């Protein structure tokens, strides 16, 4: 057996556990049972330095940061001896909650401005400031997010699937009108405010479709989903992110019909492809369809 694969003994009962990076890491620091590769999300045995699937060492905290390893160290063996989780482990969750509060304040500001029919220029300036804040917040996780902007070949079918969101949204909207005609009064109208001030449909598309698709996905499927992936399984992280995304839009009707399905599919695509582009395209297609419906209404 290679030195790195040598059995590690439990600090409590002394029994071999068969896990943990032995050899190079001394005494107390041994015992990371497994780690999750940040590039392909596969769970990798703790003794491996690189992911067997993609060869990446990202996520392998035991390769470079012994102090972090000590905090994350979780030695389990047949005696059920497990180190109590250090409070520092909840940092990912705190990061998610702080980010969520920033997103929430931005969304509420946008809602308030649209409800009060503020000038569209003010709306655009506020949105730009809000998106800037998201970018600054995302920069904290630059190392984690950078690989998500690569478009791998396996993502192409998902891009095509994402485009299907546009006809689906238009179809669902017409179906909704047929079944509940009264609901049209409660749809958000984004265009009138912009058209009143002389902005064209290009600016409306940029403000309603392109901007939210890029920056909201950057936070929800980029920062939030990947922070949550460190503390829960991919399925759970996708559901939590989708619920947060759906609730933050404060759209009662849209929550179940549009927001939740879009968010769940976007999360699934991000985890499957390890890229943000399919989720962004899906969001863009959905929001683009809404702009198209408004265009039909106003023209």
């Amino acid at each position, binding site marked *: 057996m290679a030195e790195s694969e040598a059995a590690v003994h439990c600090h409590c009962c002394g029994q071999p556990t068969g896990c943990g990076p032995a050899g190079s890491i001394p005494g107390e620091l041994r015992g990371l049972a497994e780690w999750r590769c940040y590039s392909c999300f596969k769970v990798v045995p703790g003794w491996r330095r690189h992911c067997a699937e993609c060869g990446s060492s990202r996520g392998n905290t035991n390769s470079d940061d012994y102090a972090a390893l000590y905090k994350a160290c979780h030695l389990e063996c047949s005696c*059920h001896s*497990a180190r109590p*989780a250090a409070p520092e482990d*909840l940092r990912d969750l705190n990061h998610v909650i702080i980010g969520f509060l920033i997103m929430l304040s931005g969304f509420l500001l946008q809602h308030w401005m649209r409800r009060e029919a503020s000038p569209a220029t003010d709306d655009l300036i506020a949105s730009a400031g809000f998106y800037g804040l998201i970018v600054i917040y995302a920069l904290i996780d630059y190392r984690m997010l950078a690989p998500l902007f690569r478009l791998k070949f396996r993502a192409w079918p998902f891009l095509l699937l994402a485009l299907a969101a546009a006809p689906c949204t238009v179809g669902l909207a017409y179906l909704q009108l047929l079944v509940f005609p*009264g609901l049209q009064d409660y749809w958000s109208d984004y265009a009138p405010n912009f058209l009143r001030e002389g902005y064209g449909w290009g600016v409306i598309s940029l403000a309603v479709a392109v901007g939210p698709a890029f920056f909201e996905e950057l936070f929800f499927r980029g920062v939030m989903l990947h922070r949550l992936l460190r503390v829960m399984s991919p399925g759970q992280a996708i559901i*939590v992110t989708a619920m947060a995304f759906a*609730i933050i839009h404060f759209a009662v009707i849209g929550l*179940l019909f549009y927001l939740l399905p879009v968010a769940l599919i976007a999360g699934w695509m991000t985890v499957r492809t390890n890229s943000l582009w399919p989720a962004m395209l899906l969001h863009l297609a959905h929001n683009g369809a809404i702009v198209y419906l408004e265009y039909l209404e106003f023209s």
Partner: protein
Amino acid sequence: MTMPSLSESQHNSAHRQKVKSGRGWILAIGLINAFIGAGLTFLGLKAQEEGAGDDLFFTGVGMAIIGLIFLGCWLWAKRHPFPAAVTALLIYIALQVATIAVEPSEAVRGILFKALFLVGLASAVQSAYKLKKSGY
């Protein structure tokens, strides 16, 4: 196979108790929202018949949906307490912040219960996380 030590068992039992209590908070929030939502929906329907607007009806439907989401989280928390508690906490924070933003005078109303719910949910998240990390 060696049994877990007494202190560890006690530690995990305390976490499990806190998680159970957290589930209780989620259920309470869900039921409150669902009942108030159902009541408002009923009143909204009455108001619609009398020719008033639909605002009350849609507020009721919204609250009922939120209540159902919390009840869903309560069911989910039985098998997976950590993600369910995180979801419930995020939704609760969003609703409270939105309520304060829309109607600042509402911030003080029922503040004790709001604080209790928030602390209960936050404690549930922490306990569920510790329970999850300890492998139970």
